[in-house]
């Protein structure tokens, strides 16, 4: 009851306050929700099913490139391109997943294979003129809501807010369903899950499809919001790390973990980026450090630590 009240107040604040915020704070808040969304998307596979993907950038990039190319080349609205990108990413996720799961890749091996898939796509993008190679693709700014292009930041804020809330509600529904239990069983012990009648391969693929679909939508949002994508911004390892970082720091396999993670981490990373301006790689080192500290001292993330008290 109390939790629900806090949730409603937080939601009301997230809806009502942003128009009053200065531009800089609005941008930070958009980043917070964006990374929370990426974390939530990763969480379905990484947190609930325990399959630690290091390659979610593959899905993010597929989403960003699909909607942007459809828009630039065929004038398809990115709202539609977004769904197309999601489906394509889910297809790719099922392909990559069945390859690695069928061959029994678990733990770090699965992580490495997903990383390799994302890197492979990045290299393909870099070397393909038709998708802009390393120069990337730009979307000229204008105001056209039907084309997912808005004047000012505020509309983008509400879009990412809606996406993030959608991801939370979906995750909550999964958690309470038979699928959620099956995913937890897979995460805890695959042999025991099979023995109890859980089709572990099918469950992992289902989580993979949902997770990659959601991540791809984030890619389209990124392309529309920043108006520019290139291979390393979308397929680069930093994207993969960003997603899993929010979830792990906040609490992998919990509905609100990625949100908590992002509300804590994103402002820190914005500040440090300003402080360490120009020092390439400094932010990645900072993430590495945070990750090591959290895994050592808060194995269940901030949410787990909170619950335990």
């Amino acid at each position: 009851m109390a939790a629900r009240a806090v949730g409603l107040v937080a939601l009301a604040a997230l809806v009502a306050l942003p128009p009053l915020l200065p531009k800089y704070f609005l941008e930070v808040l958009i980043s917070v929700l964006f990374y929370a969304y990426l974390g939530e998307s990763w969480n379905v596979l990484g947190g609930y099913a325990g399959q630690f993907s290091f390659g979610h950038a593959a899905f993010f990039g597929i989403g960003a490139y699909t909607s942007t190319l459809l828009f630039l080349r065929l004038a398809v609205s990115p709202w539609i391109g977004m769904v197309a990108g999601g489906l394509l990413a889910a297809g790719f996720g099922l392909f990559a997943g069945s390859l690695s799961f069928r061959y029994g890749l678990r733990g770090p091996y699965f992580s490495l294979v997903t990383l390799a898939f994302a890197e492979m796509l990045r290299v393909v993008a870099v070397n393909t003129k038709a998708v802009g190679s390393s120069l990337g693709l730009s979307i000229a700014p204008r105001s056209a809501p039907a084309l997912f292009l808005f004047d000012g930041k505020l509309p983008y804020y509400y879009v990412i807010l809606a996406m993030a809330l959608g991801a939370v509600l979906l995750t909550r529904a999964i958690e309470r369903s038979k699928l959620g239990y099956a995913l937890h069983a897979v995460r805890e012990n695959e042999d025991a899950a099979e023995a109890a009648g859980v089709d572990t391969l099918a469950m992992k693929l289902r989580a993979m499809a949902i997770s990659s679909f959601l991540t791809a939508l984030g890619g389209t949002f990124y392309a529309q919001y920043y108006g520019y994508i290139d291979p390393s911004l979308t397929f680069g390892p930093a994207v993969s790390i960003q997603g899993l970082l929010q979830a792990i720091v906040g609490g992998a396999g919990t509905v609100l973990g990625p949100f908590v993670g992002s509300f804590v981490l994103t402002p820190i990373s914005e500040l440090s980026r300003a402080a360490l301006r120009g020092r390439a790689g400094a932010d990645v080192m900072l993430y590495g450090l945070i990750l090591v500290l959290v895994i050592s001292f808060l194995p269940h993330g901030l949410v787990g630590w909170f619950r335990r008290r």
Partner: protein
Amino acid sequence: MSDLLRVRGLTKRFGGLVAVNRLDLDVGAGEIVGLIGPNGAGKTTAFHVISGFHVPSAGEIVFKGASVVGQKPHAICRRGLARTFQIVQPFAGLTALENVMIGAFNRTGDVAEGRAHAREVLDFVGLGSHRDAPARTLTLADRKRLEMARALATQPELLLLDEVMSGLNPTEIDQIVGLLRTIHARGVAILLIEHVMRAVMALSHRLVVLHHGEKIAQGPPGEVARDRRVIDAYLGESA
């Protein structure tokens, strides 16, 4: 014959080691069969193969009239054959209830229904008061019960139990024996691997004895206990 399980010529090799060698084994509906033999005889390996965790090197496994060779464990479980693990494999981070619910979802997609069934099964095995305890906090005896509860919740027709009594004290063993009698009375056939002789002797209608992967004897418990080769196998082991 109303055979539930019919195993013929089952062989499992690990490289040069023949862990199970041309095993024939039947379990009829409503039967309790004890599978005994010294350490390393191949009992657990036989379970792994029958339940789909290992692919047999040779042989036939027919459950309810259809071959299950090559099927995944979850598919075999759905057909009605459930097993426990000698080294208990709880979902450590989940509660006792959640562990059993996952078994219950084998027969229902409805979460409330699965939860209700899981509660009944937990009460039945005597873990009702530990419902919300994380599985990792349970004692060994309770984890063995949990292992059985999860298998039972899948509503099997045949239950494969791998040393569910080992490491338990005499009182706990008696409780498990009582439990198995009730499970059997409800119409579930049981194939039981057990080193606790008092319990297997009391429970089993028939015994099958494995030694170095081969079946060296079978029959009613009283007869098997007097079998020369069986006595030698066990004495040979302790000598």
